[in-house]
């Protein structure tokens, strides 16, 4: 299981009014662990009022920059992003897991490939890492970025992208699409949808020449772009996606604590939700797991190993208390949030309410 390691904050730079770029340094002994591939992300954890929050942010540094950098945009109501934007300072420590993610394509320094990147808002962070690394390590590569934002002053890395255009003259170009500001070319105003994509392919982009496309942004934008790329002949293996940070599932609140006392030997009233349907039934106390009881009640609950190893059968306890015989798959913070392996979980309260849907 991946472990968390401390990273020292060496710089916090304001990028736009509501986004910062944080530079981080691992401990000497962790340097190899944090050697990343372009387009990967870091998962951070921090306690907020006793509840552990985990948030993933893409690395925006190129592989040759010799440091770790993440861009963090403040999300309304987002505890972690607000804290980073308002309170994080050089010298602080953040806990992070080693870089993860598969949002990249293998590089080949002899290739002369044409890349196309699409970024919406803070979706630029992994794409920026890919652009910098690719242009540096594939001297014949060309990269076009289509970058969508609300307005000019919310564009992250605007200056850095300009610098890259100058550094890689003729190899790197940027098309800014702005939702709320008119531009000289109408096509570059508004949101990226199917219509705009066909306009881009008609006037600005040659679909046949593209070897690989990267997309990171809000879900509707990614769907529209992916569909258009497929319509223009790109194969699935030529399109790489990274889901926008807003798509991350919020972590659950701490679980409700059992109010009813245990009376040994009696049956348990169990309520199980799966695919939006809720079923209540009586199950034995002791000797029968929640998974077996759910299956006996004709629920098609997911499971595989039944040995507490694979975590396919994970469910969440909303009410009541259960005990797991073994747990080799769930981490402590998941257990604290109420998750259990249903193949190992037996109720110890009179009533138990679980769901596979959360």
């Amino acid at each position, binding site marked *: 299981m991946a472990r968390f390691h401390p990273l020292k904050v060496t710089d916090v730079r304001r990028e736009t009014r509501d986004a910062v770029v944080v530079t981080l340094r691992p401990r000497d002994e962790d340097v190899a662990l944090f050697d990343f591939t372009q387009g990967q992300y870091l998962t951070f954890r921090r306690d907020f009022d006793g509840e552990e929050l985990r948030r993933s942010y893409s690395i925006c540094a190129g592989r040759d920059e010799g440091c770790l950098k993440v861009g963090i945009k403040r999300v309304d109501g987002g505890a972690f992003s607000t804290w980073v934007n308002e309170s994080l300072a050089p010298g602080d420590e953040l806990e992070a897991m080693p870089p993860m993610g598969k949002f990249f394509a293998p590089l080949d320094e002899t290739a002369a490939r044409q890349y196309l990147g699409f970024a919406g808002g803070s979706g630029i962070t992994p794409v920026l890492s890919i652009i910098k690394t690719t242009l540096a390590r594939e001297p014949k590569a060309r990269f076009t970025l289509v970058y969508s934002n609300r307005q000019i002053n919310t564009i992250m890395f605007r200056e850095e992208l300009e610098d890259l255009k100058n550094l890689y003259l003729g190899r790197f170009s940027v098309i800014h699409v702005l939702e709320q500001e008119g531009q000289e070319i109408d096509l570059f105003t508004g949101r990226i949808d199917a219509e705009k994509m066909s306009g881009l392919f008609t006037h600005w982009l040659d679909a046949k020449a593209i070897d690989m496309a990267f997309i990171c942004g809000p879900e509707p934008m*990614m769907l529209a772009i*992916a569909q258009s790329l497929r319509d223009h002949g790109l194969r699935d293996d030529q399109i790489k996606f990274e889901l926008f940070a807003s798509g991350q599932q919020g972590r659950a609140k701490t679980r409700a604590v059992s109010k009813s006392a245990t009376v040994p030997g009696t049956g348990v009233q169990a309520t199980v939700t799966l695919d939006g349907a809720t079923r209540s039934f009586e199950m034995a106390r002791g000797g029968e797991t929640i998974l077996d009881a759910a299956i006996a009640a004709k629920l*098609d609950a997911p499971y*595989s*190993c039944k040995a507490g190893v*694979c975590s*396919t059968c994970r469910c969440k306890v909303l009410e009541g208390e259960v005990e797991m015989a073994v747990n080799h798959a*769930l981490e402590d913070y998941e257990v604290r949030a109420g998750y259990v392996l249903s193949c190992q979980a037996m109720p110890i309260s009179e009533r138990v309410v679980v769901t*596979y*849907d959360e």
Partner: protein
Amino acid sequence: MSETMSIEDYLAQGGVLSAPENVPARYRGELLRLMSSFVDSELAASAGFADSINFAPAIKERIAASRITLEKADHAERVLAVMAGFGTDVLRYQASHDWSARLDRDTDLGTARAGTDNRLAVLHYPINGWIDAVVMNVLQGLATGVQMTELTRVSYAPLAEVFREIAPREARHADLGLEGLERICATSEGRAEAALSVAYWRPRVAATFGVAGSGRFETLRKFGLRHHPNEALLSRWAALADERLVAVGL
């Protein structure tokens, strides 16, 4: 077009997920079930084929069987690595089942799951000698080829990528089987024995496609984990199997 949408709508419209962190709970369960079924099936297939190495009549066949044994284990390892991202304890997982265990040849499981692992039912039946191994490998290999057209499109991008790497090698396994079957069917005795094995394996491989009108298929389709119903895949496989078997005189 609004700026955001629910992850369920996104998936239903063909969206792709990229990391364990952005996977909804129900999706997670079905994705892990799909992955573990593949891992268990590959490990069981590899374990089954290990015995076939010693049934092989000549070096060429011995190498083919060794290669299938090796690569199926390798494919299991690659998918297991994707499961690890969701918390699966990989080392314990590999040791949690007896992958070479088989039931009686006369058992009739249908599409039911048996034992404690999640392998396809067909991989619970024992192989009877070299010709039987080749026939099973051809029929199941063609079935895997059909299943791969679904698996390479699953909406969890890191898994789809692994399947795209695996698919051509799985196709090669079926090709190796077809080459072997061609040699077997060059003689009338070989052809007669192969026909018996086809009769045994064909309904059992057909059952791996699951039942028609499956309720779970709808759930999986909504999640972008499946695209074509069981019955469509089954009929594609049946047509493909007919074509290949006729070509070798079966």
